[in-house]
């Protein structure tokens, strides 16, 4: 296990290096710098502009700028945000937990909904239930996600007036109920986007397992049908379902950024979009680093869980 973790972390670090290097180059080559985007009073002289450029370090060659950034990161310093003028870590700190809450809720409900639905569909393939759930799953991943967001806002917020459309808190209100009512729409769009694949994957994984002889063995032992389906069927299918979740994770995080933007949710996804728009390189890099670390950590955790779920993998 220790050796496995060591290898995983090492390869994760290597991945991070490439992600950040490529991103840095890409960001630096976007037209217009932070100075142009933020603008000044309009009356700056060329000399003033040049000194501001130097202050931000934008006059240095690209590779050197990346090297400085990397050096600082390794020292635990994410730099200062061009836009906000405060440390990047601080900006991210404010926006981090709302994102975790949003993605965590969305994914949890996708699992709670997708796994039972897929399991039932696999239990009676080609039944009405199976067809219905397939239809639902297909809709889930066929509808472009920003459309889901807009449709949800239109239906549940604008027409039915059930929940607020944007933000995280009503102004001046700090209550759990208020937070939940703001959370429902963005979280359910994430659930809706993720659940389709999960239903399909659960269905196919369970379908494979349901044909296995060890289910017959379990029945022949005299176990109840519920025990057979859950303890032998679903339990064995969990590993491939988990794989699906791992594959989906980066996509979910990417989509969450769009959802945050649309729903005005103050998370790191919407923060990243703002940062790119402002050509705020240190902030963009910081957010990317956090998201990438998070995705890689989740993947390592799921990988470990996979080993715990399937003993055949553990010893390989």
């Amino acid at each position, binding site marked *: 296990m220790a050796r496995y973790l060591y290898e995983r972390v090492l390869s994760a670090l290597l991945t991070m290096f490439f992600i950040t290097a490529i991103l840095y180059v890409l960001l630096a080559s976007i037209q217009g710098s932070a100075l142009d985007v933020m603008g000044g009073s309009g009356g700056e002289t060329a000399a003033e502009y040049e000194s501001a450029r130097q202050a931000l370090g934008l006059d240095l060659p690209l590779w050197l700028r990346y090297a400085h950034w990397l050096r600082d990161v390794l020292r635990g310093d994410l730099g200062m945000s061009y836009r906000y003028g405060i440390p990047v870590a601080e900006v991210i700190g404010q926006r981090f937990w709302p994102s975790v809450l949003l993605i965590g809720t969305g994914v949890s409900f996708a699992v709670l909904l997708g796994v039972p639905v897929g399991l039932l569909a696999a239990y*009676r393939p080609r039944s009405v239930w199976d067809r219905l759930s397939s239809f639902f799953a297909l809709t889930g991943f066929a509808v472009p996600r920003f459309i889901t967001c807009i449709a949800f806002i239109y239906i549940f917020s604008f027409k039915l007036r059930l929940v607020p459309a944007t933000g995280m808190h009503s102004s001046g209100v700090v209550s759990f109920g208020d937070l939940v009512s703001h959370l429902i729409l963005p979280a359910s769009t994430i659930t809706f986007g993720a659940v389709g694949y999960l239903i399909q994957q659960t269905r196919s994984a369970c379908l494979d397992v349901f044909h*296995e*002889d*060890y289910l*017959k*063995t*379990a*029945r*022949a*032992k*005299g*176990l*109840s*049908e519920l025990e057979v389906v859950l303890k*032998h069927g679903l*339990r*064995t299918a969990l590993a491939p379902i988990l794989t699906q979740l791992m594959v989906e994770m980066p996509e979910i995080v990417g989509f969450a950024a769009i959802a945050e933007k649309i729903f005005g949710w103050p998370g790191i996804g919407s923060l990243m979009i703002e940062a790119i728009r402002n050509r705020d390189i240190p902030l963009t890099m910081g957010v990317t680093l956090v998201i990438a670390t998070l995705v890689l950590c989740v993947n390592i955790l799921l990988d470990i869980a996979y080993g715990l*779920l*399937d*003993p*055949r993998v553990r010893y390989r």
Partner: protein
Amino acid sequence: MSETLPEVRNPTGDTPPEVRGTSETLLEVRNLTVKLKLDNSQDVAAVDGVSFTLNRGETLGVVGESGCGKTLTASAIIGLLPHTGRVAGGEILFEGEDLTKKSPRQMREIRGREISMIFQDPMSSLNPVYRIETQMREALRAHGKVSAKEARELSAEMLRKVGIPLPETRLREYPYQLSGGQRQRVMIAMSLLSKPSLLIADEPTSSLDVTIQAQILELLRTLQREMNAACILITHDMGVVTENADKILVMYAGRVAEYGPAEEIFSRPMHPYTQRLLGSIPRLDVDSDYLTTIEGAAPSLDRMPTGCRFYPRCPLHSGVCHEQEPPALRIGEHVVFCRRAADGESS
């Protein structure tokens, strides 16, 4: 079908040979019909009018090509038909009670306790994610409270009985750490934990090496005798049942072709299908370069021939064979469903 036909009296006057084992009947299957719903919603009788009896401690060999209804018959007995199948007629009398009339709950009580089953592929019949111990404990706990310690002791003892060395170590292992032969031994141990009176073994050796096959068959024989359990041994290979079976049921296309005491079937097979099945066992005492094969293939469920279902492949068939159902010829316990055999006996 067979019930309505007059019984042909034994013309030779031989007394039927005694069937081994006690005379106490454990299982009596009468006219069992299992219908399957096919993909095109057609309802077909995949098992059609099958009857046999099994006494305590006896072994019945059920022989036939794949798809002839052997496994369905067994599944009907243990109450594990696929959800497209149902018992459409007949009775399954186990200890005098009709299993076809039991509720699913009652059947669950019987499964694993009174009737156990083991399957063809030991590589896939144990759950890969649980330790052997967990799976064996489950079998014990399905039918009563057993402490973990007790379960471990009982399981280890049973593993020792089936010839697994270091049972305590094995209990801690996962199925993938065991060889195919060992896994089948574990399956046998697991199925015998609750001391069932009937063990159904569905092609238990078909996926094993030949040398292991013989060992497993011998093990089954020994344990069965020791525990006085009856056994239904399903196989497509006549060679497998030569040593183990007391009675043989030859099935073809969902029906009984021939049924009787093993010695009689082997020494005097009367159905052309049985004769050909026996002809396809390789023998050391006959010098031949060829193995007999049976021309053609068994009919599919939705295209059963009328009359005798074997006639398209039967070298002896006559015109009547595909117009009329074959009559039952009974000589003591030996029954054969073949017009030509009946003609031959009466002429």
